[in-house]
């Protein structure tokens, strides 16, 4: 990672954490902001798909599907951004899938690591159980906007911390002739 990329990642990580602190402080408004962030993400994803088509996928056999996909997602993103009130259930479902999937992978990883007799398996198992527990809590607290915002922010803060830690890691490989 170049110095510029390191600085960029640290700044983005810090900004995400700050944003989450604000969301947690004002959870009632937070649910609206969370919905807006998810809609905006969809919109941005649509644009990145189109960029992907023009820079890369147009050289690929059958790559035109990326163009259609980009247009559809962009359209969907714009549509959801125009909705004033996104049903909370969609946000909960989004969180549920993300946490449940991450939890299942962690548990499977821990079983594999245990088979190899490494000490890492306990860490993976704990991480998996936490993720699965959060997925269940998303369903339990489906009626509480405050809790949904907390769970969403917890995931974002975790990602931001990983981003900062990655930016600080020494990753260059020495070459000796």
């Amino acid at each position, binding site marked *: 990672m170049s110095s510029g990329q390191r600085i960029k990642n640290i700044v983005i990580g810090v900004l995400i954490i700050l944003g989450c602190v604000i969301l947690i402080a004002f959870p009632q408004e937070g649910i609206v902001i969370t919905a807006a962030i998810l809609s905006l993400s969809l919109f941005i994803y649509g644009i990145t798909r189109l960029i992907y088509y023009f820079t*890369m996928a147009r050289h690929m056999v059958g790559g035109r599907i990326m163009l259609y996909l980009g247009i559809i997602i962009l359209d969907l993103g714009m549509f959801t951004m125009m909705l004033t009130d996104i049903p909370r259930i969609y946000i909960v479902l989004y969180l549920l899938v993300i946490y449940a999937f991450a939890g299942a992978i962690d548990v499977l990883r821990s079983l594999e690591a245990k088979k190899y007799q490494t*000490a890492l398996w306990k860490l993976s198992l704990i991480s998996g159980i936490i993720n699965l527990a959060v997925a269940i809590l998303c369903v339990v607290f489906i009626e509480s906007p405050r809790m949904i915002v907390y769970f969403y922010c917890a995931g974002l803060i975790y990602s931001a911390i990983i981003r900062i830690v990655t930016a600080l890691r020494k990753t260059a490989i020495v070459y000796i002739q």
Partner: protein
Amino acid sequence: MQKDFHYYATYCAAYLAGYSHEESLTVCYSAQFVDRCSATLLSKLKAPRSAATTQLQLEMMDARTDRVSLQNITRIWASFHFLPYDLYATRKRCGKKYLNKYRLICKPNSDLLIDTVKLAKDGSLQAAGVAMHVLADTWAHSYFAGTPSLVINNTNYHFYELIPEGEGFAKRKIKFIHSTTAPDDFDKSVYVNSLYQASENAIMNLGHGRAGHLPDYSFIRYRYLPAWADYEEILKDNPKEYFNAFCQMVYALRFLRGETETFEKDTYDTEKVAPWESQIKEILSKRQGEAGACQDWKALGEKLSGCVIDEFDLERYQEEYLQAGKDQKDDTFLGKFILAALSQKSMVTNRIFKSGNKLAGYSIDYEKKGFRGNKDFKGLVKKKEGGIKE
């Protein structure tokens, strides 16, 4: 390629190149160990995790797709399983981002292969084994890249197997399924492949995942449309290419033993292999899975040397490494393998980085800047300073 070729066929090649039975066993064990040396295993051994030469399925599923994680994935797969053919390849109307992926496409007889074999020269037998794995895979894994990429590694429904029939071949459409437990059905040409993922950097788009295990079977011939080839059909004739791989291994191993002065591209030791050619071609063309092929290659190897070839045992050298003192670890079997792996990874990363491509990460020239970066590679400095016996 699988254990049949990386372990048993490599044993045969090493023996034909003039190595003793014991030396050949070390070479072939190391070649096969490349497919088993994961970060998880290294963490159990408390060894440098950067020496990983492969990734377990769940390690890959668990891997993030941020820049640093992608560089780690690319370093492993491009260095050991999909050696890039032309790091300076060009293609009309393609941007840098596309070209960076395109340039990692693996093919045999590349400049990097020469560098790989020469890197193992005067090194340990483990280094020779690592080089033989890389060499053999350039034949099996041709036309795929060792980095997650939809635009390079994707395949579509246009996939046909050519089955020998009389004097020619019958064309049969290949059906792909995505089950992780179902075995490939050779009789019906039903094979398991990875799921289609529309995301460019999804792990499902790494290497030949979208073509299933087809590149790993020595008997198979197939036609398909690679994502990068602009609708040009490619014929992959594995029996022929695996034979070339075998003859090139014998040639490379003779060079490593000092029997030949140079190692050049497109050169195959057909002379040494000639007495066994028909038997080898018979094994390569036999429509069978890994277990059957292992048995046949094992029988040939034992016929060649008159010695029993032990089964590959992943645990065999682990205790030796674990029990060795900190200063002695590099002199153990696995210690030498780890150094060879770090050395190969460092060299390939450097070549990719020098070509202006950051997909494998950053490389720092020790001669110019001293030691910086990932501490796992400090063993290479010690080796250079003569602290480690080969």
